[in-house]
């Protein structure tokens, strides 16, 4: 089984992971990941905004970065999270913040936003290690800036998709790796157990936001200790 955590296939994220794996910045101590855009549109029947279907911002949007944080700093032991719509269910914007404590002592700060005016979509990562640091910001690294007059009807997509022009779409890279995994039996970079572990973190984040307390994660039998 393959889980489409496509962020692992984005070249900036894959490249940062490789630098960490090569020991370029030493042991990660703090990992900061943000992902923010506008609220998914289509008010009628929009499953992104239906918490029972999408899980809301702490599940649907931020799960990408829970998974990435695990890829960088390993398994997570406890989660503390909050989101705007917990206290303000009718708020026009939503924003979630989560603090993950990894088993090895590293800490991750995950921020997810459905708060910006369309078509804004920003992602960033900072990985602070004991012998270096990696930074990425989608705005700062955008190779093209458009300062063009509107052509009139310039509607933004219903759901924001991040993109920086690259020769192969990360979605294509993902499908290609999955295809190769099925065809030749090689291991894809995301396992089913990774997908499960990310859902466990997301559920803990939702539970933490509801209760106001930190949530300790049980060891998953499917994920190696």
């Amino acid at each position: 089984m393959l889980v489409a955590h496509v962020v692992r296939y984005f070249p900036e994220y894959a490249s940062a992971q490789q630098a960490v794996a090569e020991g370029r910045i030493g042991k990660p101590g703090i990992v900061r990941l943000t992902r923010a855009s506008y609220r998914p549109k289509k008010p009628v029947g929009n499953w992104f905004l239906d918490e029972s279907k999408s899980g809301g911002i702490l599940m649907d949007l931020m799960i990408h970065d829970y998974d990435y944080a695990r890829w960088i700093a390993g398994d997570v032991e406890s989660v503390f999270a909050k989101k705007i719509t917990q206290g303000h269910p009718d708020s026009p914007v939503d924003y979630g913040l989560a603090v993950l404590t990894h088993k090895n002592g590293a800490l991750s700060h995950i921020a997810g936003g459905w708060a910006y005016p369309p078509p804004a979509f920003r992602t960033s990562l900072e990985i602070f290690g004991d012998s270096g640091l990696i930074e990425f910001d989608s705005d700062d690294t955008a190779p093209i800036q458009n300062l063009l007059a509107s052509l009139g009807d310039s509607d933004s997509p219903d759901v924001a998709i991040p993109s920086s022009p690259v020769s192969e779409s990360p979605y294509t890279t993902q499908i290609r790796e999955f295809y190769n995994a099925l065809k030749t039996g090689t291991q894809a970079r995301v396992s089913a157990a990774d997908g499960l572990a990310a859902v466990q973190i997301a559920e803990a984040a939702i539970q933490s936001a509801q209760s106001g307390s930190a949530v300790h994660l049980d060891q998953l039998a499917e994920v190696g200790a």
Partner: protein
Amino acid sequence: MKIGIMSFAHHHAEAYIHNLAAIPGVDLAGVADEDSQRGRKFAQQFNTTFYASYQDLLAAGLDGVIITSENSKHRPMVEMAASAGVHVMCEKPLATTVGDAEAIVNACDRAGVILMTAFPMRFSAPLVAIKTRLDAGELGQVYAFNATNQGELPTKHRPWFVDKTLAGGGAVADHTVHLVDIMRWYLGSEVSEVYTQVNRIFHADEVEVETGALEMLTFRNGVFATIDASWSRPPYWPTWGGLAFEMITERGAVIIDAFKQNLTLYTHQLERPVWSYWGSDANQAMVNEFVEAVRENRPARVTGEDGLRAVEVVEAAYRSAGTGQSVRVEK
């Protein structure tokens, strides 16, 4: 007006002396330091009188003093200045315990002297611009902050910053109070709960205090905020660190980087880019305010109570870090 400096333990003393020199009618009346070698050195450097004891300095007819000692020594020095009837600007954090911070506030209240906590960010031009827009209602209701006050290991300035007794802790004690004060100022609300996780992965072999810290605060009005207080910047970063935050409101978000007004400077001398700050000097505006408050004999715009409230949050942050759970801020 005559202003003195008590202790050069904190490197900000040097900056404040330059700020005082820029204000017409203000004289640096003298300095005192329990480390007499250090005190004499700076007295000579700034061409002022060195007093052998703090009492001697306070007896020299001062209008005000700036206290820049180690954090844990603020209390006895503020109490000394208050008994001498001298107005005080005290470096942040106001104290290393809530008990000491309360004693500091009470001593100045009883003596009827002005007590200002040195929170320069209240005078940062970009931060003031946002405060003005918030108060005008332009930004709508605030819901959350995602904030960072990261720095390099501060031992290059003074070794006591990583001494738990003198500093009150590590990165949490050093880097929590500025953002707490900014948020209190913006929101007009107090912190009710704090969740904190700390680690010691950066500089693990060099220091015994925490060097990494993530905190999540909840305010009484429901606003929640994270603070990254880590000493996570490497020494070869283009500048010392920074203070930045994203503020989420019902209208969207405002992203503020208080120290972004830099030139990027490349020089053969360093062979790496450095940032050369061209923004306004918040320290100057803060010292101006202290001098104005003394001249007009009125409370300063940042008070001792503001310093106390921030220390309460630091103490709660350490209690949370010890339990792994969110804790209430005790008043």
